[in-house]
């Protein structure tokens, strides 16, 4: 027992240590992220001291970029499971190890989600009110209570799966199937649920006709499974570049086909939404009018949404054409997907729900400098987490950090911790 704990602690120590070691590009990247984290921390300190008045939110538009980013990132986290399905259900060996990279992205994304929700709270010191048993979690009535449970559960699931697989690899042990396969399948369903629950946060509000529509749930999933794998495609190429971990193009192209199908579905659902809103018309489509066409002279979101639609349509066309099989075009397409969906799901969903208010008042919203810095800070923190996770995972998967060279590490002459490309 003691040996087991000691082994695990040594493993953790090595993981932590390797996070501080790298070449000049690693330090530059982490340094840049640290700077943004600091800016974000300072901005959040100002928000704690002065209240949410330092953001651009008001009683009329009471949710802003924090919740917009949260919504987008829950989708990214859910999409990590999109890699799990081909591997475990369709037995795609190519993607096997890459599942870990996807799940680590999910962990980083969930950390970002939880951070975004925390900075949005007016009284974060009262977070303990949310803990079931100690506080008063309003389960099952409140969708936010469901979100608290499923997000934290998803975090634990993925941390367990990745942690167990990596630790087994460290020990050169084949991982016991019963200890992770069931969790993998649970994670598949759980991933769908985290995003459906987040969608239901909006759908369940009868007083906001822009959100109270059945199509939001499916749209969330379709856009998540577009943006998530797109992000993973880009992340895998970065891993390929900065380490010499071998990732085949076939893996990237498998992910491309997921993005392709999901984007087509996403665009189809957009068409469904626009037809439903505008064909019959009526009083309840004011928010859609505001978003797509402008309303009564208010049109701040119109250029944004049309940019997003252009990006998404272009990406869809590129994905369908064989030209996106070439990596340069694929990367451009992924960038278009991610940006388009971030706009459409973030600002294009959260903000128009508040404009006009239920009493018909028009009040626009734009994030303040402070709010933007906090967002950058959290994104930087998330990217930092993911970088650190990868910095730990890649050497373990390559065998450079393993039980066999633990002795060298403990004696203080670890020369083979890292392999770098020339």
């Amino acid at each position, binding site marked *: 027992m003691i040996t087991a704990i000691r082994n695990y602690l040594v493993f953790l120590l090595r993981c932590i240590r390797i996070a501080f070691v790298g*070449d000049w590009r690693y*330090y530059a990247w982490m*340094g840049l992220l640290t700077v943004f984290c600091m800016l974000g921390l*300072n901005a959040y300190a100002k928000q704690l001291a002065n209240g949410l*008045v*330092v953001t651009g939110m008001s009683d009329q538009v009471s949710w802003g970029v924090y919740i917009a980013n949260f919504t987008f990132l829950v989708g990214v986290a859910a999409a990590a499971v999109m890699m799990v399905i081909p591997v475990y259900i369709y037995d795609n060996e190519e993607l096997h190890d890459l599942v870990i990279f996807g799940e680590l992205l999910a962990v980083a994304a969930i950390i970002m989600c939880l951070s975004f929700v925390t900075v949005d709270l007016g009284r974060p010191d009262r977070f303990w009110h949310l803990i079931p048993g100690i506080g008063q979690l309003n389960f099952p009535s409140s969708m936010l209570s469901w979100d608290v449970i499923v997000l934290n559960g998803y975090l634990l699931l993925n941390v367990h799966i990745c942690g167990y697989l990596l630790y087994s690899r460290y020990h050169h042990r084949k991982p016991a199937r019963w200890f992770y396969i069931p969790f993998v399948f649970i994670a598949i369903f759980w991933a769908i649920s985290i995003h459906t629950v987040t969608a239901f946060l909006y759908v369940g509000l009868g007083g906001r006709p822009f959100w109270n529509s059945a199509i939001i749930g499916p749209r969330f999933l379709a856009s998540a499974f577009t943006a998530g794998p797109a992000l993973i495609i880009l992340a895998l190429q970065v891993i390929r570049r900065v380490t010499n971990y071998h990732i085949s193009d076939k893996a990237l192209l498998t992910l491309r086909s997921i993005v392709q199908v999901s984007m087509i579905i996403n665009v189809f659902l957009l068409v469904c939404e626009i037809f439903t809103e505008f064909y019959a018309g009526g009083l309840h489509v004011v928010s859609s009018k505001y978003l797509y066409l402008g309303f*009564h002279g208010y049109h701040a979101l119109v250029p944004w949404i049309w940019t997003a639609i252009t990006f998404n349509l272009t990406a869809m066309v590129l994905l369908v054409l064989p030209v996106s099989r070439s990596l340069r075009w694929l990367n451009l397409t992924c960038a278009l997907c991610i940006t388009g969906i971030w706009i459409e799901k973030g600002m294009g969903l959260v903000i128009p729900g508040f404009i006009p208010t239920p009493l018909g008042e028009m009040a*626009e919203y734009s994030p303040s400098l402070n709010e933007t*810095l906090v967002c950058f800070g959290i994104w930087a923190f998330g990217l930092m987490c993911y970088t650190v996770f990868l910095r730990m995972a890649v050497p373990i998967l390559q065998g450079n950090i393993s039980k066999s060279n633990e002795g060298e590490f403990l004696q203080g002459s670890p020369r083979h911790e890292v392999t770098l490309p020339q």
Partner: protein
Amino acid sequence: MKPPTKTSVILLVLMGVFLALAAGFSLNLWGRPASRPDIPLVDPAFISTDTVRTSYAELAAQKGDLSDFDCYGCHEKGKPPILRFDANQNLIIPKEHSDIVMKHGSHNRNNLCFNCHNETNLEVLQTRDGRELKFSESTQLCGSCHGPTYRDWGAGAHGRTSGYWNRDMGEITRKDCVSCHNPHSPKFPGRKPAPPPHPLRPLDKPKLEAKE
């Protein structure tokens, strides 16, 4: 001495940036909460529960000045006042009562003093069916024509109710008609509303379309 590696350069730059940030944070160079414009406190008249008029009964209860109701201070007893009309059958208000504007109903329908006042006894009011009422009972006079409103008033649905909704715990206060309505021109005059709401952030109204 080895030349500085790229890593050293990066770390040195990073140190510089950290120091600059520390300075920026300490001097609070950016992200200051925008100052909000002063919002003047509302005029206390807008939160006053006083009615615009005081009825005879209230004046009497407060032992106020009832000289306005002392008709025979000027008029002669036994001599009913004569009403004068102009060419268009409009009532001419005598200059002694110039503060009265007769606008009780439309089409000059009710612009006749003795519809309500008793010409033989100016100190009482009269209904159309011949009842005599004291000034303090003017509500019944109003009710003799305005039946539905009088019925609602009796139930508490017309006119303000104040005090205690729970009759077991305290008194409910009702106002007479003339505490709010001028009997000679009962329609509420327009008044300046209290200031509109001040939003947290300026709601930039576009100039393209102005709402009414």
